[in-house]
């Protein structure tokens, strides 16, 4: 490949620039005043116009949406780990009636994208709200961030169990046998011996699910139609508003607010993320 090496090198550099430049441009543009957006897009802002951030955080409620997103993401992670870790462990280690059916169903679940089934989920929740109208006149299931967390968790169960089961299977059974010989109960063996050993896989699962929950907007848009939005939906609204009013500053500041936490997490854990991909390899 020596002949094409300079060419390939140029291509890689060009692609890296095509990604880095627009992202960096957004960071810079978020500091521009309204007037500075007109004319050449490559001019640098004259000062740090932090007013855009105040606008985005307060006037456009991005601060409040940030809190909602954080709550929904963390609760979703708690839900999915609480139900998936024991299930994955049992699938990896125990024989039980109907095991192959469970495994096939979960595997098939890997192919069902949430966005394919968001309409029936929405209608189901609307139906539940209607039948509970006497108890909760304002509805309980729609516009409930905790419910959104539960849906995120439920729909990421196949992927999470798939990855965790594979890891549990790779751990030799000797550790559990030693622990149960020492008189540890099944529960203790699972929580005290196996879960700590599976920490790399658990971390990978947390990372991928964090990105999925934090970045989703279709489900959030559908299930939280009221005032309490997530960050992504808030940003989408800013985009729509900007199209009408040409108010770019607020939009770019909002984008930075959404991008920065994710980039920070990514920079901190990129090695683990890339290793996890080699193990899971299926999350698109």
């Amino acid at each position, binding site marked *: *490949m020596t*002949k094409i090496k300079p060419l*390939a090198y140029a291509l*890689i*550099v060009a*692609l*890296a620039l095509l990604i*880095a430049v*627009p992202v960096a*441009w*957004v960071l810079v543009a978020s500091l521009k005043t309204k007037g500075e957006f*007109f004319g*050449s*897009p490559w001019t640098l802002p004259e000062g740090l116009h932090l007013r855009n951030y105040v606008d985005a955080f307060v006037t456009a409620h991005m601060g409040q949406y940030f809190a909602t997103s954080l709550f929904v993401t963390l609760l979703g992670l708690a839900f999915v780990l609480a*139900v*998936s870790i*024991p*299930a994955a*462990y*049992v699938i990896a*280690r*125990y*024989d039980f009636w109907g095991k192959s059916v469970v495994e096939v*169903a979960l595997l098939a*679940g890997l*192919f069902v*994208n949430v*966005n*394919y*089934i968001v*309409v*029936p*989920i929405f*209608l189901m929740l609307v139906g539940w709200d209607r039948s509970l109208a006497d108890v909760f006149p304002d509805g309980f299931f729609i516009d409930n961030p905790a419910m959104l967390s539960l849906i995120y*968790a439920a*729909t990421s*169960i196949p992927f999470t169990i798939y990855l965790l089961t594979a890891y549990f299977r790779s751990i030799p*059974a000797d550790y559990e*046998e030693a622990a149960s010989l020492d008189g540890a109960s099944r529960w203790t063996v*699972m929580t005290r011996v196996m879960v700590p050993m599976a920490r790399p896989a658990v971390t990978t699962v947390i990372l991928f699910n964090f990105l999925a929950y934090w*970045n989703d*907007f*279709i489900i959030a848009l*559908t299930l939280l139609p009221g005032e309490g939005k997530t960050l992504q939906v808030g*940003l*989408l609204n800013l*985009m729509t508003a900007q199209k009408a009013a040409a108010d*770019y500053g607020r939009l770019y500041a909002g*984008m930075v607010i959404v991008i920065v936490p*994710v*980039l920070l997490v*990514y920079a901190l854990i990129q090695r683990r*993320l*890339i290793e996890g*991909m*080699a193990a899971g*390899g*299926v*999350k*698109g």
Partner: protein
Amino acid sequence: MTTPAAAPKRAAARGRKGHGKFVAACLLPALALFALFMIWPTINVFRMSFYQWSGFSPEARFVGLDNFTKLLDDDQFIRAFQNTVALLVVVTVVTMGMGLFLAAVMTREKLRGRNLYRFVLYIPNVLSVVVIAAIFSAIYDQQNGLLNGTLRLLSADGLQQVWLGNQKIVLWSVAIAMVWQSLGYYMVLYMSSMSSIPEELYEASSLDGATGSRQFFTITLPLIWQNLRTSLTFFIMSAVNLSFVLVRAMTGGGPDGSSEVLLSYMYKQAYTNSSYGYGMAIGVVIFAFSFLVSLLVSRATKREPLQF
């Protein structure tokens, strides 16, 4: 060290008493959530496609296959279908081809700053689709966009386009954004499978005088073939979805339905038009389509697995 296959048997033999209760307690919460929020809604997609239902009125009328026959005469649906197929073909070929090439170069040639490039190329994969849509709206913006602004700077005003407003161009603009988003992910994925190929194989073939591109086709590609197949299936599934979220956030299917894709049309029918039954018939088509394409791809790419 026990083999993985022997482990569950031994663990299961650890005592029968209470075994069932423990298994049930561990398994049932996950299965209940999975059944309620994934299996049941999936069944509902199929069931509701036989009904005419506005969603909020109590009565749903059974109409048999009417929704499906209506689809055949729906020009907008046909256009959404064509757009989806076009995007799938173009984006799959470009992303897979470039991803493989870049991964091979990054793994085989010891480029300086390799980790930095990998870091940067993977960034789009952690960004949300809304952010990507906003970035590309900034790039494509008619007056103050990066693309048109740069063209003006280079005095190439003639090349300026209304990137998202021109019916002939908008689908390409979406395709570029899709490649931008997914290229790094597949490059990193292939890099990790290529890095497990033993170095000796390349050394031996170099001694035989094989060139880099020959090595790629005779060593690298056959040895990562299984990973490539799996990733291809998942790529197609996720591209169907990505095209939707991107279109929803960036163009809303416009102008005049020219960037509509299957999922966005389903969403539009269901929510904007409140034709839930009709929307779900589109959903059934999407399920059948993704399933068939995955099956076809998997059949067409079947090879004897190679070991190193």
